[in-house]
């Protein structure tokens, strides 16, 4: 480090100057600076004005079904992910090579994460779903940062530009699909581990209502009234609980969709306003956001799954 100090400082200074020049050029000559200073933006810096389209756009149609750019991106994600995984786990050995170590690292980290929350008993049940959600969301998010996303495209019927690839997470259907799968898995685990009636019991506590009616038949008016009242309140709370499970789908969907769409729009806008290098930090931010969103989606599925698998601490009271 000490030896090549002068040289590396020179290089560092040079790189910094170049970066600054690029940044200033972008800042002054880009749409932001030019509109403020009244200079005309040179054509080579004129990035097309971003137009935000929330629904994904169809690229071509197969017998009435429109293959959208987000669908293509999600296929790309699957191909990349499976290709990578296939290469890594083609020859599994007890003493791992580099690629196998990578695969093991991913699986082991995720498995430990799941084990940490779900415990040894349920980890293997929950793990595949959680890991798949994590890898899918993460790969979708990271692939979307590659340059060919949003740049290569076709011209649509009305003359608008339609990119061939668009971040799959920014199509509401994809977060919704994962949210539905997460919901179905959570409810399935709950039903399977507890059985239908016991699982229903975790929502609705009929105990107090029943006790109330028993008291009524015995002629005890006061406990009967309070029992029946609280019984109905319990049922109402149970209804809210059921509702909250469905609301999870919506919150899952819009959390991911919102974050990813906002990130994409942020990148587009920054790139439009200040062309050249100003968007690089935002790419870093997007890396973080993508990781976080994948983590949150997988983590929440994990937590909901654990709650469904392991019954609540408060068992329905059978004795009055």
């Amino acid at each position, binding site marked *: 480090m000490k030896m090549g100090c002068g040289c590396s400082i020179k290089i560092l200074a040079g790189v910094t100057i170049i970066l600054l020049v690029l940044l200033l050029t972008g800042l002054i000559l880009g749409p932001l600076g030019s509109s403020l200073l009244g200079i005309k933006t040179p054509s080579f810096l004129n990035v097309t004005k971003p137009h935000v389209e929330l629904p994904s756009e169809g690229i071509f149609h197969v017998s009435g079904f429109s293959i959208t750019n987000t669908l293509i991106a999600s296929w790309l994600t699957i191909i990349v992910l499976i290709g990578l995984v296939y290469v890594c786990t083609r020859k*599994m050995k007890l003493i791992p090579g580099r690629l196998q170590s990578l695969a093991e690292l991913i699986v082991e980290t995720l498995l430990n994460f799941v084990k940490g929350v779900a415990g040894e008993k349920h980890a293997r049940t929950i793990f595949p779903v959680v890991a798949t959600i994590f890898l899918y969301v993460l790969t979708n998010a990271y692939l979307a940062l590659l340059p060919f996303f949003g740049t290569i495209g076709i011209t649509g019927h009305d003359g608008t530009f339609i990119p061939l690839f668009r971040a799959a997470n920014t199509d509401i*259907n994809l977060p919704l699909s994962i949210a*539905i799968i997460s919901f179905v898995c959570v409810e399935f685990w709950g039903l399977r581990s507890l059985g239908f009636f016991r699982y229903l019991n975790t929502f609705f506590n009929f105990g107090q209502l029943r006790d109330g009616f028993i008291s009524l038949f015995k002629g005890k008016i006061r406990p009967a009234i309070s029992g029946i009242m609280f019984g109905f309140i319990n049922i109402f709370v149970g209804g809210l609980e059921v509702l909250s499970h469905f609301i999870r789908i919506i919150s899952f969907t819009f959390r991911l969709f919102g974050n990813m769409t906002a990130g994409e729009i942020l990148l587009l806008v920054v790139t439009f306003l200040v062309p050249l290098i100003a968007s690089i930090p935002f790419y870093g931010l997007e890396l973080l956001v993508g990781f976080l969103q994948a983590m949150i989606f997988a983590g929440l599925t994990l937590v909901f799954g654990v709650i469904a698998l392991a019954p609540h601490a408060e068992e329905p009271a059978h004795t009055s």
Partner: protein
Amino acid sequence: MEGIGINLPLLIVFVINFIILFGLLGIFLYKPVLKTLDERQARIKESMEQAEKIRQETERSEEEIKAHLEKARKEGQAVIAQATQIGERLKEEAKDSARQEAESVISKARTEIQRERDKAIEELRTEFADIAILAAEKVIKETVDKKKHRKLIDEVLKESTPFKQK
């Protein structure tokens, strides 16, 4: 819902996509890797158990060896002690027998000497008597006969104690 693009067929395709990904990841990632991890864990556990077993065995055999050594040492000591005892005894016996032999030799020698001495004395006495007789004859020529002389001298000699007693 059209505004943000919820689209049922697309949703279904995405669900199918996810299921496909889930299945493929299961086949190509989770199953083999988890299998390998489990296998490795089992192997590590096994080898650690084996190592523990070997360690215990080593300890046990070490103790056995120690016990053997201790036993051998004790035996050796016992043998040495016995040998020393035997040697001591042999020495004592040899000493005793030597002493006895020496004593017997001495006593034999002593009796021999006694015998020799007695013989010498006897011889000397006879010789002396002869000489005396001769001398007496020469002194008193034929006055007394030989037999009488002899008797006389014997009496004298008997009376003269120095030759009689030891």
